[in-house]
């Protein structure tokens, strides 16, 4: 539980490294939601059921709405340019969860994204509900309300695929990859920015604790099915950077960023 010492309407009075830590954390959540929105949107077609296509389209809209909300906070308090965050950053600067770096191979990847990756960010949002930085606190409940339906959808499909002999194995493999990717994204124990955010009342749990809670949720869901998840290997945290949360040398696929960005349609911009 967050023990709020002081609350803040702005960054004024905040002690280092909390402003930088919040900046990094909000950016990482926004980047992951941006890539989630892209992949959900991509799966408006090609789903195993028409209903899943409609749901995927809706999930995409919700994620992009959350990106706008988080970018507005980054703009107001860190003077970030939302368009620049999407259009002009180098790919290696994106701090999204790396499961989203490449195209999703099939529907089992989609379900792992929905059930694991989306929930990983929801755990972070949940830990920010009592955030001492009031603009963040004020935005989390709206997002969590919508994320309940994302979790419901992901868990429903997880149970469906896990119940079938032809899809269970692929689902388990995709889920294990998503969990391993989440473990790396959350980061190592004792990371200074994360420790400061928890001590300052900005977050209610450390990142390793949040990963533990995520893994517990996923394993409990899998245990109720015939999906046998393997142990998740300990991530290699060497040179882990809170600004990017990814291994050096990795980045979202250039093709994905090309389609995600509006660069090629820049001449059609309205202003």
């Amino acid at each position, binding site marked *: *539980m967050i023990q709020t010492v002081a609350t803040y309407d702005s960054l004024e009075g905040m002690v280092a490294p909390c402003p930088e830590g919040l900046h990094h954390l909000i950016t990482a959540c926004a980047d992951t939601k941006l890539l989630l929105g892209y992949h959900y949107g991509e799966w408006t077609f090609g789903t195993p059921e028409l209903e899943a296509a*409609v749901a995927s389209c809706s999930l995409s*809209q919700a994620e992009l709405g959350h990106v706008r909300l988080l970018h507005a906070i980054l703009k107001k308090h860190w003077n970030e340019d939302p368009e620049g965050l999407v259009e002009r950053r180098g790919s290696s600067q994106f701090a999204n969860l790396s499961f989203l770096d490449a195209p999703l191979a099939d529907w089992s990847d989609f379900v792992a994204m929905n059930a694991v990756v989306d929930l990983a960010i929801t755990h972070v949002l949940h830990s920010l509900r009592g955030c001492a930085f009031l603009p963040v606190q004020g935005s989390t409940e709206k997002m969590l309300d919508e994320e309940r339906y994302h979790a419901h959808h992901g868990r429903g499909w997880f149970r469906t695929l896990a119940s079938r002999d032809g899809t269970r194995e692929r689902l388990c493999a995709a889920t294990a990859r998503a969990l391993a990717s989440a473990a790396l994204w959350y980061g190592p124990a004792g990371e200074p920015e994360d420790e400061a955010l928890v001590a300052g009342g900005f977050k209610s749990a450390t990142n390793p604790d949040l990963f533990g809670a995520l893994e517990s949720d996923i394993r409990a869901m899998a245990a109720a099915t015939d999906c046998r998840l393997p142990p998740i290997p300990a991530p290699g945290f060497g040179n882990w950077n809170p600004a990017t949360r990814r291994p050096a040398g990795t980045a979202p696929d250039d093709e994905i960023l090309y389609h995600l960005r509006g660069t090629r349609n820049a001449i059609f911009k309205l202003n």
Partner: protein
Amino acid sequence: MPTCPFCDSADTVRETPFGTSLMVARHYCRTCRSFFENIKWGDREADLDLPGFLRPDRDDPERPA
């Protein structure tokens, strides 16, 4: 289940968890044989399949007033 908005019948079933947008579910009335959509926000949350930390009925001292 919600009552039918056309005939007020309580004999309805949920057809799908998502309708034309994320916030609605699609239902079917067995009495007047109509499909209708219902906004899921609020009291329907108790029906959702959720991990413990997202359940709205959980005793939650951190939830802001």
